[in-house]
């Protein structure tokens, strides 16, 4: 009995510490730039040594149903397992899994930035090479039927190898080289053998990373509590107005689906909003406005910008996978869960705020022959636009802080372990 009480006390203590730490987590860049446009901007920066966090029970997130989402589904050959999740988590934060030891998965999927990147529009990878797209959140990524914004991949187990090998992302020289890095790192000794009963290989590396990603389930938001949990006080009147617009006049729900029991906020399909079309065919020679400091802006001629820069690349979306002209500029509908955390928006990060996204759709996207018929100009006044934004701000999962705190702890473990572990990258 005494042992049981002690165990309960320990669990309660662990949970209370975790909750306390999670409450302290800022779900935004620790380098605050809110109001930077104004000369009145002031910093509110966090100290990196205090980015400590606490481990979470990820297995429970991978297995239990959260209000508003279906129960997580897992492949038959990769059922949730605490050791496999822990191994995937370790791999996810490991900077050594890139050609020059600089990039981990978490350098683009930054935990406190919605497991995305708030600080730039389009990601950069190995040696600063530009990517065409904004880093999407990996929260709830396990619910997508197809992966990448052009839906070119089918399972997370396979998907993870693309960034590991892409020359403009982590740029590992080969699959074998990734396996060799892991095999030669002392701190991985025995981990794959214990989790998978195998040495590390292409399949189980993918499985481990997929396990961690599928544990990042974040629902039970204020919206979920309101619609599915029966808590009618969970949303403000403005958010309820926004919901009504979302499922009604604004028509957002046509692509960002809400069901009677659960809501993925995506139809899993691909559409063209016109943004890709605009980049490919509607390039402008207008000067651009560049911010130099808080409240200080200047105008720069396009030619001057291009003297030090590459041209913004075309992005033909789904077409690049199928080569079907009808698929030009089509991108997968993203879920809107946790969308308040994942600015900037759209496939290329070209819209900085949710308000700017609403404005874009109010205008009916960008007119072109492949514009989705579901997108048309909307007659929304300012209050209605604000209500839609307020509604989207209600979609943040109540456990995101816990997941972020866990990620902080994982990163700290990494720094500690990697410091002791040598890697043999030299030739045989």
């Amino acid at each position, binding site marked *: 009995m005494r042992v049981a009480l002690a165990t309960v006390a320990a669990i309660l203590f662990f949970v209370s510490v975790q909750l306390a730490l999670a409450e302290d987590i800022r779900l935004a860049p620790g380098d605050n730039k809110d109001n930077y446009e104004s000369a009145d901007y002031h910093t509110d920066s966090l100290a990196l040594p205090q980015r400590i966090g606490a481990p979470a029970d990820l297995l429970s997130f991978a297995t239990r149903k959260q209000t508003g989402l279906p129960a997580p589904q897992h492949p038959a050959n990769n059922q949730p397992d605490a050791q496999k999740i822990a191994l995937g988590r370790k791999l996810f934060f490991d900077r050594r899994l890139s050609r020059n030891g600089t990039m981990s998965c978490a350098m683009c999927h930054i935990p*406190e930035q919605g497991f995305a990147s708030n600080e730039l529009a389009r990601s950069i990878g190995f040696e600063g090479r*530009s990517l065409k797209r904004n880093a999407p959140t990996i929260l709830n990524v396990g619910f997508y039927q197809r992966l990448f914004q052009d839906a070119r991949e089918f399972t997370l187990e396979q998907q993870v190898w693309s960034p590991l090998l892409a020359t403009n992302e982590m740029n590992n020289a080969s699959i074998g080289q990734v396996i060799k890095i892991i095999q030669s790192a002392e701190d991985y000794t025995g981990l794959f053998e214990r989790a998978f009963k195998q040495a590390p290989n292409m399949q189980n590396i993918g499985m481990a990373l997929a396990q961690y990603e599928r544990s990042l389930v974040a629902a039970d938001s204020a919206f979920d509590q309101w619609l599915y949990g029966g808590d009618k006080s969970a949303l403000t009147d403005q958010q309820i107005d926004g919901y009504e617009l979302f499922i009604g006049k604004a028509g957002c729900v046509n692509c960002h689906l809400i069901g009677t029991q659960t809501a993925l906020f995506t139809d899993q399909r691909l559409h063209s909003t016109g943004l890709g079309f605009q980049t490919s065919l509607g390039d402008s020679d207008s000067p651009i406005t*560049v911010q*130099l400091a808080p409240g200080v802006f200047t105008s720069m001629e396009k030619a001057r*910008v291009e003297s*030090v*820069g590459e041209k913004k690349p075309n992005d033909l979306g789904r077409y690049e996978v199928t080569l079907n002209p009808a698929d030009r500029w089509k991108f997968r509908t993203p879920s809107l869960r946790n969308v308040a955390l994942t600015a900037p928006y759209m496939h290329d990060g070209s819209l900085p705020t949710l308000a700017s996204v609403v404005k874009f759709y109010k205008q009916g996207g960008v007119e072109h022959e492949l514009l989705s018929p579901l997108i048309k100009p909307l007659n929304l006044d300012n209050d209605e636009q604000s209500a839609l934004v307020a509604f989207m701000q209600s979609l943040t999962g109540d456990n995101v802080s816990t997941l972020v705190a866990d990620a902080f702890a994982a990163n700290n473990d990494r720094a500690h372990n990697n410091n002791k572990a040598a890697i043999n990258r030299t030739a045989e």
Partner: protein
Amino acid sequence: MKQFTTHTLPRILAIVSLVWASAAQADETCMSPYMAKIVGQEDVVYVWTLGEEGLGDEQDKLVTIDVNPSSPDYGKVIHTLSVGGRNEAHHSGFTDDRNYLWAGGLDSNKIFIFDVHTDPAKPSLFKTIDNFEQASGGVVGPHTFYALAGKIMVTGLSNSADHGGRTAMVEYSNTGDYVATHWHPTDQDLRGATKSGKYADGYGYDVRALPRRNAMFTSSFTGWTNYMMDFGTMLGDPEAMKRFGNTAIKWNLHTRQPEKIFDMPGAPLEIRCAWQPNHNYCFTTTALTSQIWLMYEDESGEWQAKAVGDIGDPSKVPLPVDISITSDDNGLWVQTFMDGKARYFDVSDPFNPKQTYEKVIGAQLNMISQSWDGKRAYFTSSLLDNWDKKGEADEQFFKAYTWNGKQLELEFMVDFKAEKLGSAHQMRFGAYGLYGLPRPWEKPANASAGKAASTDAAN
């Protein structure tokens, strides 16, 4: 032949260098006061060079150029040492005894320590530090290598948590052992510092010290995401353009504690402190807002910061990058990257800099190193691999000029593209006399003559 060399204790060196500063005309002026200086003719310049894809062996290298007009190899590349990989080679700095040159990679976080004293014409790789990020507790982007007494202070530009601009200084022993991490103050942890304005961004860039005032100063740039990104892409990315430093910090040199944070909008970069014994001030320039700033000790002993002048037309963003103060503190060279100009400012009144000369050095321009007497100035072209200009304007050069107080005259140049070397970045001077070595082309007739030459080199 006027060279000063010594192997005496660093603290004595600091005093000696001050005495010499008042007697001589000017520097290798960005060197640490803890360090022996070359006040006469330098023999070689080490250029820390970025490897370029498709050019030569495509990797970073230390390039040694003979710059002594009396040498038969004057104006030639006499040695290259490839280090493997494109690490985003950037800055370098000597240990206080000037025996080793530390050179960093802003991307890979590797620090290459070169032996430059055994044979100044042929540096060798002594040691590579490859756990900077882990040892420091998450600091990324080793930038400035600044000699303190028996130590090297390495400024970071970024961190491994989010690749943003919050960072720290990392202190090492001369032998390459990690000593401590000194985080830049943030609002959450000011570490005892006082905010003089609205900002405590935690960013870092350069470091310089004024030992006689127990003062150390740092500036602030941007994190890995921005300094590695294509420059034009970044200019068009409003979120990225918010991620620049707007602060400089006065630290207690002895305790390494930050004391006062100055608001300095627009990314203050290089810091150069005055050399004269009663000149208690340092200059810096803001890259984005194109201003000269002065950090100075006022009559009450309080440190202040003030914008004291514009560089070109700030609305055109000329992008001032490297600066260099003359050793008499009367002049400040300011290089502007976008228009490729070297600009000379009269700063005899430090509160009222006046530009008195400018010259286009190339299509793009970054670094300058001037001799202690101010008569020679060397320039290189590269800023950051993905920030350099595109196409034909991506000139990569080392150019040697003489300066007569009125104009720059080109003596020779090394085309780093034609020689398939890469992109030329930071320069550091070397001299045989520093190590009691005779110049190879001045071989003595016998051993005693050699000794005499060495002694002469030290005078």
